[in-house]
């Protein structure tokens, strides 16, 4: 194949390759919208995207025991057309739950979404995922991605059949938010990769007069033409206030609604809502109350053989 004895030539080869890599890095670093590398990326996305789609469908076939994977494609059309009830027989349980909650969010917002599956995850410190919808499905760069829990991210690159999403918890993502009760504005930055996968976001308020409290919920704030995030998508809830010495504005830790390490079915918002839904999509606050426990005790008698003493927990 290639001679291995000639170390001089080996060094030359290595130097050439390293130089090429450095040039590539420099070129792609210089301009992200570079016209030189853009077609290369698009073409490779088409090639590798097909492989990833196939591989992830195989993986989903094994992980979800059958019937779901073949029907997801059909389901997506149905979601787009009906945006209504889905029968549980048509979809696997996990997909059903995800789709249903997502449709609730989307339905509350009155937006049009296209359902998609995560087929690949970025390498290294990149917090990006690849979806199996692309420009042929109407996806464009800059559209918002959400799921049943809340904001997932925004589309950063689109090829024919795939699209790349920058997750909202990436270290480079900045989300403009509005605090639920008061409507005060601030921004949230992602934690990046963390050890346990569920990082805590950091909220920074714009106004020094803003008052925060733990438990306040955040939605994406209003933005021009709905980019990068459409308004009104739930982001997270404030868990802890942070006081920074000398800071003019308040800061807080935010626990995101979305579990970014377990994304499966997401929706890309094709048509943003006509009006700002404000806090319509905010999930109901968990009501702190006493847990009622009902205990059914089987009567000792021959009449009730089927009943067994099972404690059931109710809300």
């Amino acid at each position, binding site marked *: 194949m290639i*001679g291995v004895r000639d170390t001089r030539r080996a060094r030359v080869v290595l130097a050439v390759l390293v130089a090429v890599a450095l040039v*590539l890095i420099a070129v792609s670093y210089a301009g992200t919208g570079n016209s030189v590398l853009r077609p290369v990326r698009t073409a490779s996305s088409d090639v590798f995207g097909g492989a*990833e789609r196939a591989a992830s469908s195989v993986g989903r076939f094994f992980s979800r025991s059958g019937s779901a994977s073949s029907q997801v494609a059909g389901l997506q059309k149905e979601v787009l057309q009906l945006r209504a009830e889905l029968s549980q027989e048509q979809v696997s349980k996990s997909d059903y739950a995800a789709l249903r909650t997502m449709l609730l969010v989307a339905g509350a917002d009155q937006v049009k979404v296209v359902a998609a599956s995560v087929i690949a995850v970025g*390498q*290294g*410190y*990149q917090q*990006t995922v690849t979806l199996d919808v692309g420009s042929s499905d109407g996806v464009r760069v800059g559209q918002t991605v959400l799921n049943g829990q809340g904001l997932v991210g925004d589309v950063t690159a689109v090829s024919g059949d795939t699209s790349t999403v920058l997750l909202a918890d990436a270290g480079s993502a900045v989300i403009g938010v509005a605090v639920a009760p008061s409507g005060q504005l601030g921004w949230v930055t992602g934690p*990046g990769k963390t050890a346990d*996968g569920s990082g805590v976001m950091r909220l920074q308020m714009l106004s020094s007069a803003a008052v925060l409290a733990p438990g306040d919920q955040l939605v994406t704030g209003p933005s021009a033409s709905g980019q990068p995030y459409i308004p009104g998508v739930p982001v997270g809830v404030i868990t802890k206030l942070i006081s920074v010495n000398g800071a003019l504005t308040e800061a807080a830790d935010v626990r995101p609604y979305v579990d970014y390490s377990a994304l499966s079915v997401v929706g890309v918002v094709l048509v943003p809502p006509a009006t700002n839904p404000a806090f319509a999509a905010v999930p109901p606050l968990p009501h702190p109350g006493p847990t009622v426990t009902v205990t059914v005790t089987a009567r000792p008698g021959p009449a009730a053989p089927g009943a067994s003493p099972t404690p059931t927990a109710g809300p």
Partner: protein
Amino acid sequence: MRAAWLIVMSLAVALVVQLTLLNGLHLPGGGVPDLVLVLVAALAMAEGPVAGAVTGFAVGLCLDLAPPGSAAIGQYALVFCLAGWAAGRLSPVASHSTRYSAGLLATGLLALVAAAAEVVSAVVSLLVTPRAATLSQVRVVLPSTIGYDLLLCPLVLSLVMLAGTLLAERPAGDRFRGVLAAGSRGAAPAALAGTARSPRAARRARRRFELRLGQHAGVTGDGWLSTSRVPGRPTGHVPARRAPRLRPGSGVPGSASGLVFERHRPAAPVHLRLAGGRRGDGVIGTGGLAGGIGSSRNLPGRHPGLLAGGASQFRPHRGEPGGSSSVTRIPVTRTHPPRRPAVSFTGRRGDGSVGHTLSRGPTRPALTAPRRPATIRFGPHRGGGSVGHTLSRGPARPALTAPRRSATIRFGPHRGDGSVGQTLYHGPTRSATARPRLTPRRRPAVIRFGGQRGGAAAGPRLRMGARRSGITAAATVVPSLTFTSRPSPVSRHSAAVPRFGRKTALLRPARPTSGLVPGGVLTEATFHPRPRRTTPRLRLSGGAPGMLGGTGRGPRLGSPPGRAGKQPRFSYGRRSPLSVLTSHRLGRRLGGRWLARWRVGSRSAVWLVGRRMGDPR
């Protein structure tokens, strides 16, 4: 081709699995195993640095371009390219280790490369995407990533070795023997080595299934792991690149010893002596003794060409073991009693000044080597088999270091004849600050009658037995006697005509080297006056100068071949234009010192020249 396809397919599968499955895993610690990196490094350990670098670059580029994509295209291409190259470079370390620890060592090296590559990858991410990858993230994620990689290393390495072994061991597929993906280059010699291996090795190979790495995955019975870089050699245990050559005629300067600067040395007249008398032997540099070590002539940094006119004499046979014309200044060489020639027709076991190890240390214990009469030995001769025996200079290379060897014939009572396969250091200066670079040349035993040193225009050569394949295959070789006048393999490199040669009748350039010099002082790098009578008195070929020794510029030699050997770029006879940079103060300030080193490369003698020019005392 099959193997290449297998490599490509495995890398593609690993890439897709990495992106779709592994990266999506939610593992404690936050990191995920980097299957692609480990696979690239493992393949590079089997394939070598160049293939590793190319493979790593290609796969890294694919990883950059595959849909989620990296922030900057080329980021993983850079990291994986370096990782592949490093793994390819490090794998001979494992193959040269002892047998059972080789696998462990290979795994450790692979883990080391993977961990280093993860660190480099994190650094590149920090540099390229400073917002996406912060230092705190790296601190959290990097240890767990390295940990998962280390878990992956033994698995991937054994899979790669298993695939290579199975692929190379197809029963009818001798054509594919040898290399996992080295194509047909090493196929024929590997097959030869495989068929000629000893019955014991064959039995051992049948008994045990071995995983092997690298080019000789198909040669069973040679060890658990072998990454010999020499195609056709059965294992990594025989690192010889060039076979030792036995020159019985002695007088050829630096005859059989693998000299570093062989090509640059002038040829010298050769005496064929069948008797012990040494009366007319010229002496090179005896007069140098008068100057003594450390005299003004020997100041390092002096140009050798400026030192002509000393009282030295030319003595081609004296001094060094190896028959070289190198000069010793040690009086102990003179105290050797004259030797008696002898002819013995029986193989002697201990008769091994052939390949006797000469120490290269400054204390010269080499000169205490037993003097030995000339012997003619017929018959298979095991003890003589220490030809090429002194090769083990690196880590332990068990087995195969002393293959059985056939008869050797020696003509000419020559003590130093034993430096066959020997590495003598003949660097030019060997000053106290200089590091000698020992680059051994090992050769098979080739008996020569009057072969020119450079090999061009060689006289008839007697080859007895020890063929190259006989060495490499480690089989008993039937001695065969062939009289051929085939060109020497070295003849492609010209018999060195030094650039600084001055073509006067009286001056004859001595080698710019000084041989083993105690204390590491430059001694004989000079021009010495040639004695009047230097014509060989006995010549086998009717006085043709190029025949038996001779001048090296005999009529048979003609012009040097097209691909001449490399000459030192800073030659002695003329000044390089670059020397202005290195000699003047301004030039040195402009970086001429670095330039000189860079230009002359790292070879010892030339390096020293450049260095000295850069830093005169």
